[in-house]
């Protein structure tokens, strides 16, 4: 995975004007709310992902940016201009379709030239720009081929070239890597990100693959049932999920329901029946005692010991029930006194160094208060 990008994001700059603004947009299909009062701002140069399970409204939102769906309520602005009712063919936006939607009766070159011809670009310039795009996606020798004579990866690149050749302000990508096999997908992820950085075009991508979203995005929005549940950089969303849905949706997580018993300067104390003890959590906000919260902690933040470790913020003991060997890491499931299963991850280098644990062994797990988050929602 590529780490979070070093540069300062435009979204952090108060003077920056957003390229895309979605204001209180709602769209229903019959009784079903596909998009429910969504607001969102995307800034120039971003690689923004809409992440969610199928049917969460991410594709509808993307299609509204392209102009294929009209919101029932709310407005869509691109470059400060209200485009809510502008048809797709007049928008400064291009889209790469999930199926690629390459015109089967046209050659690769004609597919790429299609958009330019609609704008009556002079022939010589069309040829030049098509050749340039073919070089960019490394398909130089393929201009005369028909789409059905290309491999999946080549088709994907033609679709990308066709959407980029008009130099849109905004490129929309609907599951751009969904049809590729795993190996090619990982490779293409980096290619896409490099291309985006080089061209400086704003990308908005729809995906259901969280790893893909985390790897490629500058920021992402996690969607569920037509609403945005959290917007942030991949690191923010992973480290500090703002609600139970996002915490459970992104990555694996240990989650304990409980009530706040007291708030100290450095954190909260939460009483959790299922953990069989009180847990200490770093507090971001003030929370009144008695408030129900969920304490979440990622498995890789949970350390596991065969013998009683030195005291730490949260220490529990239990029995090892399951061990899953995944190659790079091993996952341990430990049943603690309160009855809940806690998942702990151990890199296999650490595993070899530590005392061997096996099924049924007594084990101790512990984690720092700073590594856990208390969620109200």
């Amino acid at each position: 995975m590529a780490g979070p990008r070093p540069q300062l994001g435009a979204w952090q700059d108060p003077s920056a004007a957003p390229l895309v603004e979605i204001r209180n947009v709602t769209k229903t299909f019959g009784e079903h709310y596909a998009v429910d009062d969504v607001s969102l701002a995307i800034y120039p140069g971003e690689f923004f992902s809409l992440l969610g399970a199928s049917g969460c409204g991410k594709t509808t939102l993307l299609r509204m940016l392209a102009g294929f769906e009209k919101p029932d309520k709310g407005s869509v602005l691109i470059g400060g201009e209200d485009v809510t009712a502008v048809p797709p063919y007049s928008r400064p936006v291009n889209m790469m379709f999930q199926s690629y939607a390459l015109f089967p009766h046209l050659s690769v070159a004609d597919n790429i030239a299609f958009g330019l011809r609609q704008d009556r670009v002079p022939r010589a310039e069309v040829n030049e720009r098509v050749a340039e795009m073919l070089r960019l996606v490394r398909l130089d020798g393929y201009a005369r081929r028909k789409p059905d004579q290309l491999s999946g990866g080549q088709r994907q690149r033609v679709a990308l070239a066709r959407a980029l050749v008009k130099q849109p302000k905004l490129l929309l990508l609907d599951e751009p890597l969904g049809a590729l096999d795993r190996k090619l997908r990982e490779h293409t992820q980096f290619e896409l990100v490099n291309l985006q950085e080089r061209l400086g075009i704003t990308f908005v991508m729809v995906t259901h693959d969280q790893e893909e979203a985390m790897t490629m995005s500058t920021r992402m929005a996690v969607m569920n049932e037509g609403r945005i549940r959290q917007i942030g950089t991949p690191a923010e969303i992973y480290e500090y999920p703002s609600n139970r849905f996002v915490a459970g949706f992104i990555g694996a997580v240990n989650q304990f329901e409980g009530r706040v018993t007291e708030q100290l300067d450095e954190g909260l104390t939460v009483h959790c029946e299922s953990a069989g003890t009180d847990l200490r959590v770093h507090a971001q906000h003030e929370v009144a005692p008695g408030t129900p919260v969920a304490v979440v902690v990622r498995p890789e933040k949970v350390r596991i010991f065969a013998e009683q470790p030195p005291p730490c913020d949260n220490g529990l003991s239990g029995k090892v029930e399951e061990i899953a060997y995944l190659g790079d890491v091993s996952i341990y499931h430990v049943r603690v006194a309160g009855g809940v299963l806690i998942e702990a991850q151990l890199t296999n280098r650490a595993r070899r160094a530590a005392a061997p644990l096996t099924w049924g062994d007594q084990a101790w797990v512990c984690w720092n208060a700073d590594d856990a988050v208390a969620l109200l929602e």
Partner: protein
Amino acid sequence: MMRRPSLVFSLLAFGYAFLYAPIVSLIVYSFNESRLVTVWAGFSTKWYTSLLQNEQLLGAAWVSLRIAVMNATLAVVLGTLAGTALVRFGRFRGRSALALMVGAPLVMPDVILGLASLLLFVAMEQLIGWPAGRGMTTITIAHVTFSMAYVAVIVQSRLVRLDPSLEEAAMDLGARPWKVFFVITLPLIAPALAAGWLLAFTLSLDDLVIASFTSGPGASTLPMVVYSSVRLGVSPEINALASIMVGLVTLGIVIAGVIMQRRAADAR
């Protein structure tokens, strides 16, 4: 069933024999010297010669051909519009009426279609004076009405299989709806349109009942002339005509097959 494929295959062979025996017998007897079907009196092509001198049959064939071409062309235009509206427009007012009227002619008995069209033409002539009398125009209108339904069904089934994002992609790249239709949709459904044209052409060329109802004096189609001659008994000239038709159709299909195979080979 799979254990005894021979049973299925013998039934298959029987089916084809049933379909082709009458056609083969027609062709064989078209070369018979004798007027009687009963007796084989030697090989002769005289019935083809006399067919070519039969002014009535030739005239009727010319009438039929003109109607069939007009009909097929109009039916393709109207059927394409109907099929596109049904598949691509979602729900609109009149959709269910259109769907019903596109589906019904497919299974409506000819006698009802013919009678209905005739009565309409009579009533219209009374009311607005058009169409004045009946003839090729009225036959063509009646034929278009039922054959456009076949075209619409063919276009519909092709459009349903067409990825809608192709049209969206064209629009996304700046093409307006009509342009999208002509530059993307039309080329992609062209084979379906060709099939629809041929089907409408054949349906029109083949129709006896509707033409009989909607025709007037001086506009006898080929099936009408064949029918009146067939009612009088077997005629070797009709055998010759049938053989020519079978020959033309077979030729057409073989050519179409070769073209399609070439295309497939090119695509590889």
